[in-house]
């Protein structure tokens, strides 16, 4: 009898191992990451453009090649084999390792950016103890004559006190080109003293040491990892990088390369393809490039797809001031921001549910759907988790609204910084992303995001969107609930034949994709808006007789 080629696929027989090409791809990606690590430890001292390009390219090629082999040598279709067998995705060893590394990265990013090498063209000055720092201001004059005052030294900028004097440090983000100059004023409108900065030699010259009693001015550029990204930042906006730029660049890269992986995994599903292309587009264009270009043109940073209350500082006085003082473009930002809140978002949510934002546009969602895809099954589906979710997300919403209102009346730096710390940093960043491999990819979206809360309420009560269940076809297998990243127990509705309209549903469409019997469909209609979930199509017998 003929010997049959038992494995027509080129994947090797041990599903937990990689084939040769995948091993090479993993090595290439690892090399790219290694360059980042080397930079992080300050061991790259030149040719930053080359190293950065190499690192980003290697990581891109590594991930894309690996994904290509993983998915294209198997039939198109749902590929969740071994999700619960592999330690990366089943809260095993590798999951915890990645979780701890990610969480650590976020903690460093938010609270210890100097570890990443942030100095950002900062100036350290030493003043004698009896000097009054509030009289001294430092600024930058660009080669085109425009000047920017960084402001007066203030006691809070003190980083060190010794018997020689107090050391102050502040960032000069306006330092753009080699021809810029730094100036110092001792008092009010005094004639400034100029200091010349030489970028290549990293020196300051022409300093009159007795100016304002200053003992010393030291200049530090970015170093380590952030320095690695300087070439890209300078290319885009003619300014050195900051930790936020590095974060934004890596975040965008992650969405793009893991977006490619996701599109390969779901290449049989056009909804997933379009949706992923959409988040990739909005992240690259609106969340990364456009704000950089705006800053290049000296406009305030603005992500046009980020709206209040997610963008919790939109109504803060400094933000309003920045927009109103930036000409027509600034006014457009303000008007657009208001339109988004009052018109665009409610209208789109009415027609399509909150999925138009949460899984097609938002950057948090974008990362969750692409880099976070391997972890979506780790969300908690229990009733208890749902109760906590409703309590928590609406509390954050109340907090966000209250804070915005209060800040109209009180200018409270404490309140602002508390919100920024607790919600902006810890919740949405550290826990939101750091905990992907432990709690799933949508912790922030589900338990914290105030915008999700508002959109969710509208979706629940005034929207055309629903996930239709296909009559009696559900076999209660549980794939839908397992793969719902928002922790919705989709099965509980499907097995009753009830349509799903949940405030937390982001419309990712994965439940419908993994259903092995075609029971679910995301769709919209206005006809039955007020009774979208009334019918339990599985129930046969009622007072009117038997529904056949």
């Amino acid at each position, binding site marked *: *009898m003929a010997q*049959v*080629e*038992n*494995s*027509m*696929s080129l*994947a*090797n*027989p*041990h*599903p937990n191992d990689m084939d040769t090409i995948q091993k090479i791809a993993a090595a290439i990606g690892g090399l790219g990451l290694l360059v980042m690590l080397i930079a992080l430890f300050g061991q790259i001292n030149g040719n930053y453009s080359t190293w950065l390009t190499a690192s980003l390219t290697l990581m891109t090629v590594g991930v894309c090649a690996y994904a290509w082999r993983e998915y294209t040598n198997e*039939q198109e*279709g*749902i590929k*969740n*084999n*071994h*999700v*619960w*067998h592999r330690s990366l995705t089943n809260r095993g060893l590798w999951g915890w390792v990645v979780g701890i590394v990610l969480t650590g990265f976020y903690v460093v990013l938010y609270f210890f950016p100097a570890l990443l090498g942030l100095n950002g063209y900062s100036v350290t000055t030493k003043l004698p103890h009896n000097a009054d720092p509030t009289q001294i201001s430092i600024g930058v004059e660009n080669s085109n004559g425009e000047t920017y005052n960084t402001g007066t030294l203030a006691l809070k900028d003190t980083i060190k006190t010794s018997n020689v004097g107090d050391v102050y440090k502040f960032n000069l983000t306006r330092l753009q080109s080699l021809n810029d100059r730094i100036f110092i004023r001792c008092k009010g409108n005094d004639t400034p003293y100029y200091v010349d900065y030489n970028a290549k030699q990293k020196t300051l010259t022409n300093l009159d040491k007795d100016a304002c009693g200053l003992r010393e001015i030291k200049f530090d550029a970015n170093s380590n990892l952030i320095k690695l990204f300087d070439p890209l930042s300078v290319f885009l906006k003619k300014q050195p990088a900051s930790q936020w730029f590095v974060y934004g660049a890596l975040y965008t890269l992650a969405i793009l390369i893991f977006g490619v992986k996701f599109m390969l995994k779901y290449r049989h*599903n*056009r*909804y997933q*393809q*379009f949706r992923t292309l959409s988040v990739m587009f909005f992240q690259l264009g609106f969340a990364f490039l456009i704000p950089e270009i705006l800053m290049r043109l000296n406009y305030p940073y603005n992500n046009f797809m980020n709206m209040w209350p997610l963008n919790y500082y939109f109504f803060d006085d400094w933000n309003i001031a920045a927009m109103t003082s930036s000409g027509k473009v600034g006014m457009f930002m303000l008007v657009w921001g208001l339109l988004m809140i009052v018109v665009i978002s409610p209208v789109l949510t009415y027609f399509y549910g909150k999925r138009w934002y949460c899984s097609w546009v938002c950057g948090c969602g974008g990362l969750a759907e692409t880099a976070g895809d391997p972890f979506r099954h780790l969300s908690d589906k*229990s*009733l208890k988790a749902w109760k906590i979710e409703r309590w928590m997300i609406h509390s954050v919403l109340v907090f966000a609204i209250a804070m915005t209102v209060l800040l109209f009346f009180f200018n409270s730096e404490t309140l602002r910084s508390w919100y920024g710390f607790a919600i902006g940093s810890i919740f949405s960043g550290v826990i939101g992303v750091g905990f992907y491999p432990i709690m799933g990819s949508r912790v922030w979206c589900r338990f914290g995001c105030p915008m999700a809360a508002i959109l969710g309420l509208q979706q629940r009560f005034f929207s055309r969107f629903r996930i*239709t269940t*296909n*009559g*009696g*076809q559900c*076999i*209660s*297998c*549980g*794939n839908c*609930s397992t793969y719902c990243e928002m922790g919705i127990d989709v099965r*509980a509705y499907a*097995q009753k034949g009830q349509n799903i309209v949940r405030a937390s549903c982001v419309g990712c*469409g994965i439940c419908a*994709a993994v259903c*092995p*019997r*075609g029971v679910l*469909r*995301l*769709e*919209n*209609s*206005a*006809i*039955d808006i007020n009774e979208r979930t009334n019918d339990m*199509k*599985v129930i*046969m*017998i009622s007072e009117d007789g*038997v529904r*056949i």
Partner: protein
Amino acid sequence: MHIVIIGNGISGITAARWVRKLSNHQITVISDETDHFFSRTALMYVYMGHMRFKDTQPYEDWFWEKNRIGLLRDRVQSIDTQAKTLNMRRSADIKYDKLVLALGSEPNKFGWTGQDLDGVQGMYSAQDLEGMEIHSIGLKQAVIVGGGLIGIEMAEMFHSRHIPVTFLVRENSFWNVVLAPEESEMVNRVIKKNGIDLRLETELKEILPDENGKCRAVITNKGEEIACQFVGLTAGVHPNINFIKETKIETQRGIMVDERLETSVKDIYAVGDCAQLRNPPPGRRNIEAVWYVGRMMGETVAYNICGKSVEYQPGIWFNSAKFFDIEYQVYGTVLANPPAEHQSLYWEHADGEKSIRIVWDDMSGMVIGFQTMGIRYRDEVCRQWIRDKAHIENVLMNLGLANFDPEFYDQYEADVIAMYNQKTSGNLQLVEKRGLNSVIKFIKKQFA
């Protein structure tokens, strides 16, 4: 009253839930298989790593106590129908007022030599899943006997672990006792495309042991010996009623029940795989071992137990399955070997992995069945058309109403109509494309 239900599958549990919804009776559900209800259909996904076993449980553990449904993990040794008592293996005797038998099925064994060897098993219960897991360690070659739904699922399970499979199928095309030729051939293709060694017209003759009492090879009816360390017996199932045969309860292949799902003994009912209807409704069979039937019978029997007489009316047949990556749906009557009166329109996509078949009565033009592969169709719309005895041309013009594929997917209904027009030299146009608004109006019988 004490209602006791033997079996915690979809049939027994649906009965328990509905008895609780309709009454305050004491309810006890007994199972020897598991502590809690789980979805049997999901076992394959546990093996493949898509889900954990606990993810297959439709209700959280607090559900049972909250709804006062008592659960007992034990085996019923015998039933004393006179004394209305169950004799248990571990627990004390249990007295019941009404009893529901929801015993399920067991895999067929046709007396092959070696069918009880180690490494030879079906794939039905949670214990079978454990057995497959154990035998998969170091498994070099598996043989699956019987080309049906469970057999192809077992093949998919082994495929996920890249364990080579030889698939013995008695018929000359896969599952062609149910699937029409074109769909059956499509499944043949997808089986082979996944690297499975498909042997049509091949049956198991004997299983050979090694020195440890484990299987080491099979011999087929063509005289070939195939070395293997696991044999999956998936040649159908039969009702699991051995210990019932010792009682007064009337059985044939299954437990005989009337329209109210009551057995020959008063206050004893049977539902699901183990039940055999004396008078099945027209167009239905007397034993239908299918998830949906279990659910419907569970709901019906609860009403009868709680004093409201309701006939079991399953309505129009429907079923679904998945053959590797190809989803299958059927509504109504689509026979593998249809009589002359059944006209059939079969459209297949050029990629050979999607198809739509519509069956209608030749004389009247009434649509009687839909069958799709790789394309999702709406249950409510298809069965409503059949119920309404809609004319084939009316159905075709509105065929878009039935499409349930996700947004942005291609729609093929125009191609189906084009094919019909070609056959009949007709000129039908597609009036309704896919869309929920029209579907809601259709189902609510509101026409704009």
